[in-house]
């Protein structure tokens, strides 16, 4: 059985398909149709809702934190112990007039932020998260980040951006939900814990939500054919688009050992099931160069549930984290009942969507070594659209140098081969070279020795090669500071334009 709070109602589910998403469950079982299906692939945000979870800070204090998720990508079983808020619960009266609306709703009405209205419930939820997580308007850049995963085809977004600001101009609305959640949590604790392993069942098909890693590896040993899922941002697409009907789903999203994140002496240990939103800020403090990469990885909704373990485990040739982890020489722990082994991230991928992971193994954590003093890091992502788009080319170059002579180079690219891969020939060109533009352009010139990329829906092979080469020139300028970096602003800096 799983148990969670839906708006103000404690909800228990025992019998359900293991692959049911929250969106389908809401629309077909509860009759709550305010949450819309626009794409069922996490790209449009029309099904956005808030998910609340209890957070414990390092002083041991707890509070309920609410964040947005795409309900089309979240499995029902993953809701266990959480608080789901849907658009129906935002206004607190039944037949509201303008003055009865929540500030984010009222602002959307007064700024004319809805036209056809189909994306509107999702936008309301994204605005609500922005509102309850900020006392005052956090600025246009934050608003754009909050709404980057919500597509609107009617308005052109201008009135929505205005509404994001205006919502903070009314009298502040109290947030009523965490009080409900605290009560819910108390009721959970007061119950006998007969069910240490939450699960769902539908005839023979099962969903398990192991709470500890020992439960997890026992399950993977018992069901080696099971689908392992964390945030579900990729897995749920397999369900909705390829109509997969897995017999057994094991979710690692609440496995305590896999949801730990720590930073010690500059070294990062990131549990495989830690969502991006919980570690990216810390990582980007040490590696500010990677900030844009993470800001552009999916959308806020995706970063609120997606994990490194999920991204690596899927072994997509175009996932953005893998090239970064390879360039930073990260390692990963793979765990099974037999024990744990540690391998380099770059050795994990063996072919298109193929990895060394054994059927009974799970990715437990990812470790990033301490940053070297002389490390220079460049992260570039090129895609058709700036936000919420998959990379045409994702290029990460990490070099170390002594007296301006390059001593080591780790150059990893996504979108250039069947797996995220290093560029040995280009690296060889760099090592021993001076830290100037020429060195990088020389390395760029041999791109074809390392890669023969594909032409696909995102771009031609030729474009991928030229862009890689051209970006090496940019990196040369950046690293050698041949011209001030702010003179080579990129149009992809449009988010910073927005904040001007």
């Amino acid at each position, binding site marked *: 059985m799983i148990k969670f709070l839906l708006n103000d109602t404690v909800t228990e589910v025992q019998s359900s398909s293991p692959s049911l998403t929250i969106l389908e469950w809401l629309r077909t079982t509860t009759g709550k*149709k*305010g949450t*819309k299906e*626009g*794409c*069922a692939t996490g790209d*449009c945000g*029309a099904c956005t809702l808030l998910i609340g979870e209890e957070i414990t800070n390092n002083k041991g204090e707890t509070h309920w934190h609410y964040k947005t998720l795409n309900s089309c990508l979240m499995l029902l079983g993953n809701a266990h112990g959480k608080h789901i808020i*849907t658009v*129906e619960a935002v206004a607190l009266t039944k037949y509201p007039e*303008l003055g009865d*609306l929540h500030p984010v*709703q009222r602002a959307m*009405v007064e700024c*004319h932020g*809805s*036209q*056809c*209205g*189909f994306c*509107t*419930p999702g936008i309301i939820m994204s605005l609500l998260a922005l509102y309850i997580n900020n006392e005052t308007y956090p600025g246009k850049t934050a608003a754009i980040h909050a*709404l*980057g995963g919500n597509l*609107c*085809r009617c*308005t*052109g*977004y*201008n*009135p929505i*951006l205005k509404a994001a600001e205006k919502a903070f101009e009314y009298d502040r609305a109290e947030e009523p939900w965490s009080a409900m959640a605290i009560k819910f949590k108390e009721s959970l604790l007061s119950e006998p814990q007969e069910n240490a392993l939450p699960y769902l069942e539908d005839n023979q098909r099962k969903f398990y939500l192991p709470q500890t890693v020992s439960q997890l590896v026992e399950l993977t040993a018992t069901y080696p054919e099971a689908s392992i899922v964390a945030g579900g941002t990729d897995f749920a697409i397999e369900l909705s*688009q390829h*109509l997969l009907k897995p017999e057994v789903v094991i979710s690692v999203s609440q496995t305590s050992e896999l949801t730990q994140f720590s930073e010690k002496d500059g070294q990062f240990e990131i549990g495989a099931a830690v969502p991006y939103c919980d570690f990216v800020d810390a990582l980007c403090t040490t590696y500010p160069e990677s900030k844009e990469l993470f800001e552009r990885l999916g959308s806020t909704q995706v970063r609120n549930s997606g994990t490194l373990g999920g991204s690596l485990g899927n072994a997509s040739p175009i996932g953005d984290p893998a090239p970064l982890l390879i360039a930073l020489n990260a390692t990963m722990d793979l765990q099974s009942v037999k024990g744990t082994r540690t391998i380099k991230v770059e050795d994990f991928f063996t072919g298109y969507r193929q990895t060394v992971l054994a059927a009974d193994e799970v990715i437990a954590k990812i470790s990033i070594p301490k940053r070297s003093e002389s490390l220079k890091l460049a992260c570039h992502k*090129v895609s*058709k*659209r*700036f*936000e*919420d*788009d*998959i990379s045409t080319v994702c290029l990460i170059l990490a070099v170390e140098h002594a007296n301006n002579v390059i001593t080591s180079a780790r150059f990893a690219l996504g979108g250039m081969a069947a797996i995220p891969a290093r560029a040995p020939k280009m690296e060889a060109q760099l090592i021993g070279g001076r830290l100037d533009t020429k060195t990088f*352009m020389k390395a760029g010139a041999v791109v074809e020795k390392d890669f023969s990329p594909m032409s696909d*829906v*995102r*771009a031609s092979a*030729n*474009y991928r090669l*030229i*862009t890689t080469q*051209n*970006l090496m*020139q940019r990196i040369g300028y950046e690293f050698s500071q041949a*011209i001030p970096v702010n*003179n080579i*602003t990129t*149009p*992809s800096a*449009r988010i910073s334009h*927005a904040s001007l």
Partner: protein
Amino acid sequence: MRHFEMDKLQARGGSVGKSKHHESAIKQVCGKANYVDDFAEPAGCLHGYPVLAPVAAGFITSIDTKEAESLKGVVRIFSAKDVPGKIDIGPVFPGDILLTDHEIEYFHQPVLFVVADSYDTARKAARLVKINCEETEAVLDIHEAIEKQNWVRPPHSLQRGDADSAIKSAKHQISGELSVGGQEHFYLEGQVAMTQLNEDGGIFVQSSSQHPTEVQHLVAKILKKPFNFVTVEMRRMGGGFGGKETQAAPWACLAALATYHLESPVKVRLARADDFRLTGKRHPFYNHYTAGFDENGLIEGVHIEVNGNCGYSPDLSDAIVDRAMFHADNAYYYPAAKIVGNRCKLNTVSHTAFRGFGGPQGMIMAELIMDDVAAKLGQDPLTIRKANLYRPGRDVTPYHQKVEQHVLAGMIETLEKDAQYWERKEAIKAFNKTSPFVKKGLAMTPVKFGISFTVQHLNQAGALIHIYSDGSIHLNHGGTEMGQGLNTKVAQIVAHAFGVDFETVGVTATRTDKVPNTSPTAASSGTDLNGMAALNAANTIKDRLIEFVASHFEVEAESVEFNDNKIIHAKGEMSFAELAELAYMKRISLSSTGYYATPKIHYDRAKAEGRPFFYYSHGVALSEVEIDILTGENTVTRADILHDVGNSLNPALDIGQIEGAFIQGMGWLTTEELQWKDSGELASSGPATYKIPAIGDTPTEFNVSLFDSANPETSVFRSKAVGEPPFMLGFSVWSAIRNAISSLADYKYAPDLNTPATPETVLNAVVATKQWAADNLGANEDTQDEGVSHV
């Protein structure tokens, strides 16, 4: 009913001209605005899903449904043989086949229709059907279709003067070509319909459709029943953009077919990827031109050929390519012109209406020519554009309609000054000289867009108004609400006519049994037509009430006024509600229909002459962009727009249409790229690969103003249509990108820039421009970025 005028100041306390929020806004923000998939499903509701063809062209040899039928929950699989009436659902010309049982003409064409007890089961079962075919060679390239003269409809041409000799005798000649990409509508609510038997055994259809009457007709025809057998209801769409004008009908027909046979409610809802694959898009075009012009850049003659990729069937393509031809002049006078339009048949889904209806694909040629002429003469493109505008004496279009309203020169001048075109142009030139990788561009482009359906009989509308005895008003009209605010505007018009508060008027779902024989809500005409029909209905009732008040209170009819929710006459006043009650008690009819047909328009297609358009809407946009010449990435940093909506009925809604259309046009021209695989299968079949603008793409600075001028024609309150025209303001973005690239050749070269201008397309143009500069400007040109290489 006569076309008549009403001064918007005639009523006090009316709401015309006020920025009322959308009538459904509060419901929308609460998740309480229901779309077709949100209505409670009737008990026993079944779900249907189409089975799709596995090749782009060929003949079906055999079909194996065994595995699908054995799936638990499958009720029945329908084929063409189960259709009692017409199988062809072509809206104007035959060619659109509901279910094919023989020839396959595009990849994923519907072949069968599975009905099951759940949505999942129907989808799953549809994939288990095996279709074997004998594949034939598909035509997937427009050039091949042109070469083979593979048309869905015969070519048409417009001619005025002798274009070829005008071009030849001009001082300069220039020619160019352009591939224009298509566009997926990506309405957020996908195609959906639900059908059930009504109380008398007829069929009740709920469909997300811009054209309920056509859905009604087609459902009746496939079932071989009279039109009154079918009732269609449509409360609201989650976006339409033209994509639900004809494309909503097949799903309603399939659901109705199953309901008819199974006597059960049936719902059809396409998953997003299938919505992409199975519904038509904006037509991709391949166009070319030759132009002759003088030393000042004044056009003397043009020859333009536009070729629309229509897909496998005519659908609406005849009128769409016509509109492309009608707009190949945009706002510019061509003293002599020959404009040829071909309707190419390819083995893809049948392309269809999309905001602008071919207009954008033709109009872009005029803007291409202006930029090319400017580069050739080394002039600023805005100077060339201004010189060529229609003006008195130079005012006849290639289809011989006289342009009577000349506002664009003034609008351009205003925007030029307010948005500091020339100062910014200089600043950008200076920036581009020193910025190594990022180049800026600036462009101002005008829009002149003809308003009316070019198919004359569609220019009519009906409405129905009831006043209940408590004074509340029920309004119904033949238009459909897809987010544009049509219901809001029509309610404002009716409230204004009765001098009552906007809230007094309730608008209800569009239904074919309330207002019959309606036109699609398309061609930007929704308010022009339905607003006027509603006003006529209101005035009919109002006339009765005035006559009643005059005789009841023994006052002059002229003294009766409807203002501030009151009726004021020479001897006193009463509230509107009291009047309604009194009129009811005195047995005065409080209900009326209203009707409207657009005057003045006519077009002789055989001669290619006439006045197809009642009037023109205008707009001007100035866009500033940045491009990265290393990657081709580009972004719009600022847009300034001045747009002509006549007397605005609702400034907030009009600005919403303008902003939204501009961004949609920008997306069409930049990030939205449709791609088909070599097999003919759509490759960009979902939002993961087809990128519409996201919130960060909205220009950092985005200024939109309404041009203050009344419509010289007697439209409803002298307003103008606004749905489509501002879409084409997006050209300023495309032109600004070309401008930024041409900085690499000192603005002496205008690079080819097919649309969409994706990073890859821009990078290719950058490479070509640098090559041209190297060949033509010599080595001493300042090219700091000389190291940028290409493979």
